């Protein structure tokens, strides 16, 4: 019976050679025999006997045979008579409890960032059709909805988002107080977080953040020149000088939970190394995460091919720094690599690119529930309402349609266990449909995933105890 190579991506890390197996997302380290078996099979299908013969000068028949058995067991190879089963789209066996509810507490913002997906040229929801602020009643109803959809989960995550979240600070306070009051008799833990542009952080708000252990993510694009390119007030004035003292005060006082910076990268702002240095080393953020701007391709701030190459090289520089720091026992705040390492370590093989519509949902200011905060308020992407609950038939239909098994473009890509086609909102903005995979950054995703795998392999080889933090 002839043997054939299965689906995997091989990579080096430290002194080891590894396989990232697809679709299981298992990572294994190869010894010399296994490597030779796979190399021989790269030239074409062979029977076990042929493999043992051709490798007989270097290894015993027993060594080759047992290596073949192990490779078969891990599905790194298969017999041609028994190819791996084709994936089938199926909805989750059990209802996934809601873990994170994102409340869009207002659609208003005091900044006018040129690239904003909520207000800019690619917006989905016409803001004037919805209330500008979520009222307290809707917020309380959202909290009730969160607990009823969370099922048995001991922890629920309540995230405040906007617009500019802090424009509705009064409601945040009452909503979180109500959530904690409801959680106590249920024996659940509420984990609150918010995203802000930091313009409105004042003493009273920082007090509340510290007292309530609220996780904070600050949207900021780098040093003054980088920040003020797009993150401006409506009169065009940059926001850097206003936000930095607020951020410093927040970082000084809020020590119990890490405060992260979230950077939007554009065609004009791609120097991730200098952005990172400024935000991590100079301002003192705990971690810095980067995301390319979500935009249709023709916008002037869209990142084009040369930009993606520049971005990759910057990410690779930071990933190398991350590895050096980890090996030296020092912290590094590049969260993109840390997050991916954790997913690799757990062996996540995703049927969906993210938890949107599954364990995460977004609530619009009027209480409509959508896939995530980015779609909140869009009737096309509505899954229910906090007043009437989730429309589970609509949710099931969404999940069946968006399953990775239905994305034929992704079916031969080795990075699909981690990427699964990428952000629905990005796809909707770029291609007009959430079902489309984000083909414009496939090359980038594969190159970046490979970089993360190499870092992972090097850590597994040289400092495996580092990876134990993800267990």
């Amino acid at each position, binding site marked *: 019976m002839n043997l054939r190579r299965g689906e995997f991506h091989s990579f080096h890390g430290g002194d080891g050679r590894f396989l990232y197996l697809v679709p299981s997302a*298992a*990572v*294994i*380290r190869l010894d010399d025999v296994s490597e030779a078996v796979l190399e021989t099979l790269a030239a074409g299908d062979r029977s076990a006997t042929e493999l043992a013969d051709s490798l007989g000068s270097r290894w015993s028949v027993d060594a080759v045979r*047992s290596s073949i058995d*192990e*490779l078969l*067991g891990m599905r790194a190879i298969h017999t041609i008579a028994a190819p791996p089963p084709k994936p089938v789209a199926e909805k989750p066996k059990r209802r996934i409890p809601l873990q994170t509810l994102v409340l869009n507490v207002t659609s208003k913002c005091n900044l006018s960032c040129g690239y904003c997906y909520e207000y800019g040229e690619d917006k989905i929801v016409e803001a004037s059709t919805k209330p500008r602020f979520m009222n307290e009643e809707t917020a309380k109803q959202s909290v009730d909805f969160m607990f009823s959809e969370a099922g048995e989960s001991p922890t629920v995550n309540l995230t405040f988002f906007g617009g500019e979240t802090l424009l509705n600070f009064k409601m945040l306070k009452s909503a979180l107080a109500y959530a904690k009051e409801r959680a106590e008799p249920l024996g659940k833990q509420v984990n609150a977080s918010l995203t802000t542009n930091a313009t409105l952080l004042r003493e009273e708000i920082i007090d509340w953040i510290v007292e309530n252990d609220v996780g904070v993510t600050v949207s900021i694009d780098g040093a003054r020149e980088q920040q003020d390119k797009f993150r401006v007030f409506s009169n065009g004035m940059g926001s850097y000088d206003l936000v930095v003292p607020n951020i410093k005060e927040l970082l000084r006082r809020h020590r119990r939970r890490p405060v992260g910076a979230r950077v939007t990268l554009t065609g004009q702002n791609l120097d991730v190394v200098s952005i990172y240095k400024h935000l991590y080393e100079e301002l003192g953020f705990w971690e810095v995460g980067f995301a390319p701007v979500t935009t249709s391709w023709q916008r002037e701030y869209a990142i084009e091919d040369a930009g993606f190459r520049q971005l990759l090289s910057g990410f690779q520089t930071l990933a190398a720094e991350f590895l050096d720091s980890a090996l030296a026992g020092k912290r590094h705040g590049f969260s993109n690599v840390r997050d991916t390492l954790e997913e690799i370590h757990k062996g996540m*093989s995703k049927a969906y690119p993210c938890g949107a519509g599954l364990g995460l949902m977004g609530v619009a200011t009027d209480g409509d529930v959508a896939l995530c905060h980015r779609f909140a308020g869009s009737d096309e992407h509505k899954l229910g309402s906090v007043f009437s609950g989730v429309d589970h038939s609509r949710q099931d239909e969404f999940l069946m349609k968006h399953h990775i098994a239905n994305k034929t473009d992704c079916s031969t890509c080795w990075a699909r266990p981690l990427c699964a086609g990428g952000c629905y909102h990005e796809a909707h903005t770029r291609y007009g449909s959430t079902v489309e995979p984000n083909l414009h950054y496939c090359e980038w995703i594969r190159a970046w995933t490979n970089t993360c795998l190499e870092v*992972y392999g090097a850590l597994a080889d040289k400092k495996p105890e580092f990876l134990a933090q993800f267990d």
Partner: protein
Amino acid sequence: MRHLTPINQKARRIESTLEQDVVALQQGGPPQTGPHIPLGCSFVFSPGWEVDSSGGTAGLCQPVERDLFDCHLTCFWPAHVPDLYNYAPDWTAKCASAQKDWRKIDLIFP
């Protein structure tokens, strides 16, 4: 495993299932913890379980449907039989005797 080292959690989980998998008796098998009771069809000579010399099923000495029927209750081997617990509980309802009625076994399409 001697040749492959599982590195991440998923690889370790797969490895732990391999250790419990069915192992041919010639390979020694897992350590025996009780009396060995052979199960299923593999210790009985039952021609018709394999493909024929051309790799197809046309030349088998018994109808392939009989093989399906043999697998469906007693055998440990994960043969391609319909899932009679969830989706197709009645798929053999019209087949009282496999030798005579095998044509009446329902075709089930997933």
